[in-house]
C-alpha cells in the first residue's frame, strides 16, 4: 500500500465518476488534436502545391506588369542583376531557389520567339514541369520541410527533389517544343540569333505553357545578344509556403523597395489563409478547453473532496500530513490528466483520420508528437483545476463541525 495505490483504488472504485469527469477534457483535447492534425497535413499539402507550381514569387521592376512578364514586351523595364545578390546576402529564411531571367521577344526567320536568359542550376529547380527532360543532377529543395511540422511525420513528396541544369554553356541553348518544331531544329543543330551562333543542347518536353515557345540561353549570353548588360527582367523565387505566410513578401520588399513583388497563384494564398484560420481555430479551442477542462476537473475534484471529507478525516486522524492530502489529490489530478490526454489524443487522431479527407481533401495519419502535447496540456488542465479543491481539502480538520474561536 502506498499513496499511488490508494488513489488508483479510489479512482477505479468510482469509474462512473471518473468517466464523466473525463468527458470534457477528452472531447476538448480531441478537438484540438483533430484540428491540429488536419492543419499540419493541410500545411504540407499546400507546401506541395506551391512546389508543383514551381516559382511562387515574382520580383519585377516597379513599372512592370504581370502581363509584361508573360508577354515579354520588348520595352519592358528591367532591374539590376545585383538584386539577386541582395536577396542571397540578406539571410531571409524561406527562399529556396532564385531564378533570375532576362526575357525578350526576338525574330528569327520572320517568326517571333521568346528568348529567355537563365542561370543554369537555379532554373530547373523552379520548373517542376521540366523534370522529365533527363538532364542535370538532383537539387534538394527545402521548401516543405522548413518547419518541424513538415519534417516530423514522414510526409513523402518526390516532387521536392528537383533537378538543376548542370551547365548551359554560353554557346548552348534549350528549345521549347513549339520553338523546336517551328525552327525545324534538333539536338546539336546550330541556331543563329542576332549574329551569335548557338548549339541546341536539349529539346524540352511539352509543358503546355509559354515555355514551349521559348529559346533558353545562358543569362550572360542573353544579356550579350540583347545588349542589356547586367540587367534582368524578373527574379522567379521558390519560396517556402510557411515563410510566405509568415511575411516573406514583406521582407523581400524591405530589401528591394523599388521592385514589384507578388505571389503566383490565388489558390495557394487561399489555402495559406485556410491554414491560418485552422491554426487560429485550434488556439481558440485550446483556450476554451483550458477553461472548460479546468472547471470540469475542478468541479469533479470539489465534489470528490466534499464527498470524501470523512475519508480525508480518517487519513488525517491516523497521521497523514496536510501535504500528503494535497499530494493525494494532485496525484489523482495527474492520473486524470494522463488518461484524459491519451484518450483525447486517440479521439482527435481518429476523428482527423476520417474527417481529413472529407473536409480538407487530404489523407491524415497520427502525429505521435501530439500525444506528448495532449498529455502535458491535459495534466496541466487537471492540476490547475484541482489546486483549489486540494488546498481546501488539505486544510480540513478531522472532526471539526464547529468553528473554533
Amino acid at each position, binding site marked *: 500500500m502506498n499513496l499511488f495505490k490508494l488513489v488508483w483504488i479510489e479512482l477505479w472504485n468510482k469509474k462512473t465518476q471518473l468517466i464523466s469527469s473525463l468527458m470534457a477534457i477528452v472531447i476538448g483535447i480531441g478537438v484540438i488534436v483533430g484540428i491540429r492534425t488536419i492543419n499540419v497535413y493541410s500545411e504540407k499539402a499546400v507546401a506541395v502545391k506551391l512546389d508543383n507550381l514551381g516559382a511562387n514569387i515574382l520580383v519585377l521592376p516597379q513599372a512592370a506588369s504581370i502581363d509584361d512578364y508573360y508577354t515579354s514586351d520588348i520595352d519592358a523595364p528591367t532591374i539590376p542583376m545585383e538584386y539577386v545578390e541582395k536577396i542571397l546576402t540578406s539571410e531571409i529564411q524561406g527562399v529556396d531557389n532564385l531564378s533570375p531571367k532576362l526575357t525578350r521577344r526576338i525574330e528569327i526567320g520572320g517568326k517571333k520567339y521568346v528568348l529567355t536568359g537563365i542561370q543554369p542550376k537555379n532554373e530547373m529547380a523552379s520548373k517542376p514541369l521540366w523534370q522529365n527532360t533527363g538532364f542535370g543532377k538532383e537539387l534538394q529543395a527545402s521548401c516543405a520541410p522548413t518547419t518541424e511540422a513538415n519534417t516530423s511525420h514522414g510526409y513523402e513528396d518526390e516532387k521536392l527533389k528537383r533537378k538543376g541544369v548542370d551547365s548551359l554553356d554560353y554557346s548552348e541553348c534549350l528549345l521549347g517544343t513549339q520553338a523546336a518544331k517551328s525552327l525545324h531544329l534538333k539536338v546539336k543543330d546550330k541556331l543563329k540569333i542576332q549574329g551569335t551562333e548557338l548549339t541546341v543542347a536539349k529539346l524540352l518536353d511539352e509543358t503546355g505553357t509559354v515555355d514551349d515557345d521559348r529559346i533558353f540561353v545562358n543569362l550572360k549570353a542573353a544579356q550579350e545578344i540583347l545588349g542589356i548588360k547586367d540587367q534582368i527582367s524578373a527574379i522567379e523565387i521558390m519560396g517556402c509556403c510557411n515563410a510566405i505566410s509568415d511575411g516573406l513578401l514583406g521582407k523581400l520588399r524591405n530589401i528591394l523597395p523599388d521592385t514589384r513583388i507578388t505571389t503566383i497563384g490565388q489558390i495557394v494564398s487561399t489555402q495559406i489563409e485556410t491554414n491560418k484560420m485552422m491554426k487560429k481555430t485550434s488556439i481558440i479551442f485550446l483556450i476554451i478547453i483550458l477553461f472548460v477542462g479546468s472547471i470540469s476537473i475542478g468541479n469533479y475534484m470539489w465534489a470528490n473532496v466534499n464527498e470524501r471529507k470523512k475519508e480525508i478525516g480518517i487519513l488525517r*486522524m*491516523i*497521521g497523514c500530513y496536510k*501535504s500528503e492530502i494535497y499530494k493525494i489529490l494532485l496525484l489523482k489530478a495527474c492520473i486524470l490528466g494522463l488518461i484524459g490526454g491519451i484518450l483525447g489524443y486517440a479521439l482527435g487522431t481518429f476523428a482527423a483520420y476520417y474527417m481529413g479527407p472529407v473536409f480538407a481533401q487530404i489523407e491524415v495519419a497520427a502525429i505521435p508528437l501530439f500525444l506528448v502535447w495532449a498529455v502535458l496540456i491535459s495534466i496541466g488542465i487537471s492540476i490547475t483545476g484541482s489546486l483549489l479543491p486540494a488546498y481546501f481539502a488539505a486544510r480540513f*480538520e*478531522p472532526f471539526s463541525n*464547529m468553528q*473554533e474561536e
Partner: protein
Amino acid sequence: MNILHTENLSKIYHHKDGLVNALKNISLTAEKGSFVTITGPSGSGKTTLLLTLAGLIRPSSGSFSLMGKNLSCVSDSELALFRRENVGFIMQSFALIPYLTAIQNVKLPLALIKMNKAIQQSKAVEVLKTVGMGERMNHLPRELSAGQQQRVAIARALVNAPSIIFADEPTGNLDPKLSVEILDFLKAINQKNNITIVMVTHSPVAADYGNVRIHLDNGEINTMTNKN
C-alpha cells in the same frame, strides 16, 4: 510513568448560538498501561476531551502532554507525525475507508511510515488474525458485519504498535454480546501489551472495564476514580 497529563485544558467552540465551553480547566493524569474510561451525558464534552488528548483538535487554553511530550503548541505536522507513530484510534463509526479491503485498511498506518510492502503485508495479516479476521482480510467494509468492521478498526489501531489507543464509543454500534467481546479484547491488549487505552463510552458496563474512570458533566470533571 505518566503517559497522559493535562493542565487546565479548555476548549471553546464558536457556534452560531454563541460560545460553547466544551471543556473547562480539565486537569488529569494517567499512567502507562491505564485503561481510562470517560463517561458523561450527551454534550458533556467526552468526545471533545478524547479528540483533544489525541491531538486531533487543539485546546483553546491549557496544556497537555502524551508520553512526556508537550503537544499543546506543536505544529500540525508534528502532531500528525506523533499520531502515526504512537497513537491508535477506534471510532464508533469504525472509520474505515470504504473502498479499501480489510487488509488494505490495516496497512494504511504502515504505508504512512513508508514501511516495506512485504513487512506491511506480514504485519497486517498477523494483526488481523489476532483480532479474528484472518478469514475476511480481502473483504470490503460493506461486506463485513458491524462487529467485524470494528475488529478491522482495532487491527488498524494496533498494527503500528501504538503506546496509546483512543477509542470513541467503540461499542456504540454493536449489540451487547459483541460489545462484551470487543471490550474483552481491548482489556486483553491493555493488559497483555501494556497499551494505554482512553475510551469514551455511554455504557456503564463498558465504563467498568476502566481502572481510571472520569465522569464529565458540562465540560468539567465531575468525578475521577482510580481503581489502582
